[in-house]
């Protein structure tokens, strides 16, 4: 078959046709994958909440509350309830102060305000340095660096260099500060809920 000639009609027709087909195909695939994508996003969220909160039986996603901090940032709180009783909350908190800016955490608080566990959801810190956040602050073998069980309302959760109770990740003071800042912001957001 000979190649179509590059006339105006041909060009417009062919390109339009191709784009239309492409659009249709895309929309189709989009429809197909929409569900799984949402599912996987949801699963990520739920898994994170599950990982950081004490056991619960409600649907925290449904009960989520948005809390506004004094500086205007909005932080999402997922309350965890066991048999209707408030047992704690997962807080999706963030900070912009990381070595590479944005760090997003899911911090789980017990009802008394102490930290149950946390998960680092998103960050761009340096691999091998700032990226150690996940292991470092949850290492309960080393009480001076772990934040698990500590209560931001009681303990001073800043790095020891700044006079706080937490040892910074070696050579990553900035990430450590940022991490603790995010935790603190999470606590600030959730503390009104805890008081109830």
């Amino acid at each position, binding site marked *: 078959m000979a190649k179509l000639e590059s006339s105006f009609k041909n060009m417009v027709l062919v390109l339009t046709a191709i*784009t239309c087909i492409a*659009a249709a195909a*895309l*929309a189709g695939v989009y429809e197909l994958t929409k569900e799984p994508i949402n599912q996987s996003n949801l699963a990520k969220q739920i898994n994170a909440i599950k990982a950081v909160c004490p056991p619960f039986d409600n649907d925290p996603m449904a009960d989520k509350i948005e809390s506004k901090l004094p500086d205007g940032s909005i932080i999402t709180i997922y309350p965890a309830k066991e048999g209707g009783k408030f047992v704690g909350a997962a807080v999706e908190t963030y900070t912009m102060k990381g*070595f590479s800016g944005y760090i997003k955490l899911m911090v789980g608080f017990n009802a008394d305000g102490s930290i149950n566990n946390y998960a680092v959801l998103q960050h761009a810190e340096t691999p091998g340095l700032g990226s150690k956040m996940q292991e470092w602050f949850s290492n309960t073998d080393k009480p001076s660096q772990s934040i698990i069980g500590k209560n931001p309302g009681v303990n001073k959760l800043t790095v020891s260099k700044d006079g706080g109770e937490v040892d910074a990740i070696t050579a990553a003071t900035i990430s450590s500060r940022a991490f603790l800042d995010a935790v603190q912001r999470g606590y600030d957001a959730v503390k009104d809920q805890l008081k109830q």
Partner: protein
Amino acid sequence: MEYIMIFIAAVFVNNVILSQFLGICPFLGVSKKVDTALGMGAAVAFVMTIATIVTFLMQKYLLEPFGLTFMQTITFILVIASLVQMVEIILKKVSPPLYQALGVFLPLITTNCAILGVAIIVHQKDLSLLNSVIYAISTAIGFALAMVLFAGIREQLSLTKLPKAMEGTPIALLTAGLLALAFMGFAGIA
């Protein structure tokens, strides 16, 4: 202040070429002429700005309202490709001598991934229009900076004797790596 931060971040801290790895092709390919590098920078700044504005408007007023964000990639690339062509036609129509002069002095601007990359990144970062534009400009300046530095280095390297195996791309990549190493000094500034 915010704008300055975006600027510094895009030029020095997260330089397109040296830390984002976008636009490597022209970086490796373009000549050792400083002039050309600067001209490319200016051209890229212009194209990037228009492309960013147009795609921004498309995204905000067409794709998002209709829930078509999944077509981002395909529309953006088409729009950018047509845009670049448009600029050429207009220039040629409006002022043939100008158009001719550009032809002699600059290589064609091809849609490289930096332009598409910026158009996409501004939405990932959820920047406002103004911030997007500043980001685009800054990226282009960062691009020009790296290109110009590199043009100078190439010029010098062309007068020395390199080990055979390192000639061409390897030394270009190695130098880019060492430049990136030096640029890491700006880390944390913004």
